[in-house]
């Protein structure tokens, strides 16, 4: 962890919308080491996408970003002008999004779109860019790269389009790749291929990855560390083993129990989390999960809990003591 690619301290993001202030992210810390795959999980509206878009300044104009520190590659991104930021995007930090169709220009060939990225960021000539584009397509496992560069996005399947986007994101060998739900729109078989591909890339280039997803299965299979977000706050953070085998937060536990496991006995019932996520325009004064939590105490509604440290990598934000949580979770069975 000495080699940090990204370090974010007390990041807050607010939106002004119809005279109301939406507090999407309410003070989170995130660190990503070199060659690390960090998963951010959470429900829609938990602030996970907004948080990473803040790193790349891709938020709309009504967004206000406030942070003590956003460091990447030795540079404090907070002080950069939009012009300087453009050099960071693509070169240092690249992003891929959920929907591979809307991220590609429908009327320009795949080859040209790739070349443009390479020419723009690396200042090479068209010829070199073309060669590089071919190489990238090959790298991401496109079966006929020669044919593919002449095709338009609509001619490719969803999985192939997502590969093109990954190729595009990696063309300039970024230090950090942010993948925002990259497989949510894809079928399981294709999802498996894309996740394998992301794993390969980390092995080969030492790229760090932030993988945003709501699928805990995906996290378990690809990530090294996990950040669990809820209501704009980080509820729990730890290595995958810590999060999946010794969760220390009722929300994490509830999430784990909500997914059916393959070995689940017939006739058993899924444990749903009753209620709904908190409103972000008027967030609760206490723990955002308190309304839906089965272990609440009075204090949970009054103030936001402090972050407790359980190991050098494992932290959780809950008023309950470690022993109490362990005792409460001891009998729980979930998708192991």
């Amino acid at each position, binding site marked *: 962890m000495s080699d940090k690619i990204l370090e974010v301290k007390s990041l807050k993001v607010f939106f002004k919308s119809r005279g109301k202030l939406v507090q999407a992210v309410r003070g989170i810390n995130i660190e990503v080491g070199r060659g690390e795959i960090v998963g951010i999980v959470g*429900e*829609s509206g938990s602030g996970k996408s907004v948080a990473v878009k803040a790193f790349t300044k891709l938020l709309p104009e009504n967004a206000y970003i406030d942070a003590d520190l956003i460091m990447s590659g030795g540079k404090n991104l907070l002080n950069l002008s939009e012009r300087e930021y453009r050099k960071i995007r693509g070169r240092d930090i690249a992003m891929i999004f959920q929907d591979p169709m809307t991220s590609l220009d429908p009327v320009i060939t795949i080859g040209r779109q790739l070349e443009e990225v390479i020419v723009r960021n690396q200042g090479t000539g068209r010829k070199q860019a073309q060669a590089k584009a071919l190489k990238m397509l090959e790298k991401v*496992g*496109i*079966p*006929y790269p020669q044919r593919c560069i002449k095709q338009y996005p609509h001619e490719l*399947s*969803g*999985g*192939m389009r997502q590969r093109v986007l990954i190729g595009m994101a990696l063309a300039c060998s970024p230090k950090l790749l942010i993948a925002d739900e990259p497989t949510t729109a894809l*079928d*399981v*078989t*294709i*999802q*498996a*291929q894309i*996740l*394998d591909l992301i794993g390969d890339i980390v092995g080969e280039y030492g790229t760090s990855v932030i993988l945003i997803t*709501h*699928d*805990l*299965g*995906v*996290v*378990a*299979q*690809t990530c090294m560390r996990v950040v669990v977000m809820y209501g704009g706050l980080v509820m729990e953070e730890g290595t*995958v*083993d810590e999060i*999946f*085998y010794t969760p220390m937060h009722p929300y994490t536990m*509830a*999430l*784990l129990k*909500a*997914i*059916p*496991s*393959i070995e*689940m006995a*017939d006739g058993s*019932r*899924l*444990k*749903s*989390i*009753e209620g*709904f996520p908190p409103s972000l325009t008027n967030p609760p004064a206490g723990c955002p999960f308190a309304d839906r939590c089965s272990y609440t105490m009075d204090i949970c509604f009054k103030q936001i809990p402090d972050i407790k440290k359980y190991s050098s990598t494992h932290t959780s934000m809950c008023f309950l003591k470690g022993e109490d949580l362990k005792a409460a979770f001891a009998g729980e069975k*979930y*998708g*192991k």
Partner: protein
Amino acid sequence: MENEILILAQGLKKYFQPRGFFGLKNNFIKAVDDISLEIYKGETFGLVGESGCGKSTLGRTLIRMYEPTGGSIFYKGEDITHIKASQLKMLENRFQIIFQDPYMALDPFWNVGEILEEPLRRIGMDSGQWSNKIKDILEKVGLGSDDVHKFPYEFSGGQRQRIGIARALAVNPEFIMCDEPIAALDVSIQAQVVNLLQDLQEELGLTYLFTAHDLSMVRYISTRIGVMYLGRIVEKAKSRELFKNPLHPYTKLLLSSIPLPDPKNAVKKRKFKSVQEAALTDVMRGCNFAPRCEYKTELCLCEVPILRELEAGHFVACHNAKEIN
């Protein structure tokens, strides 16, 4: 009760013929190609497969939302393959559908009361009874009677799906096609909706056809499961049996692709052939899965495998199923 067949399809076909450039006719898209299927009363039949395999089309053809191209459909032994529009109306209160996207399936300008009155009017219920009936259904799906005056935008995704379920229930149907009802919802909300569907099934004796691409959820809710690949059912078995002992190479591929929520059990590298996925328009004489299959033989390329009962209640459409397993 278990053995009463509610819906039976024989050799069902549904082809689409898209118009291409300048209205030229393209090849047929064989969305449903020669499928035979029986759905028992009170069961949940799960359909799984990749997007574009025809599972939604199959479901919609079964409830006669689409006119089948070939084959026949029987409802309680009665042939409903080509019945007239007037009779179709009668079927509407037997069959209902719940859609994937609760945001798009509800009219944004109608409040919940109006959304639920529509089906009641269609079945000719006396307007004096509407408000009681609506209150009753809303309670069943876990919404309050004061929600009647609210509009869809005032609800969250999970609540909207409950409205969709309420609308389907309004006509007291027997059979509900659940077309990816949980795909657009968050994990914690998915469990709520699935539990609700199960409670309703128990209480009202409903029969479901449930499609989803989340396999573990289908495994959880279904009695039996059919695996579809490019318009055909390639394997059909009791849900537990299918997951324990998949026989078709495609089912094996699907199951091995599920990311398990268990880091220690991380999947070993899957071997995939980077074959461009075949499309429904491709003319194929043999098994549709052959281009992606690692066990394919000469036979697979020239003859369509039929669904055979390899083990009791476990059907598979693969020429080499015996050899592979």
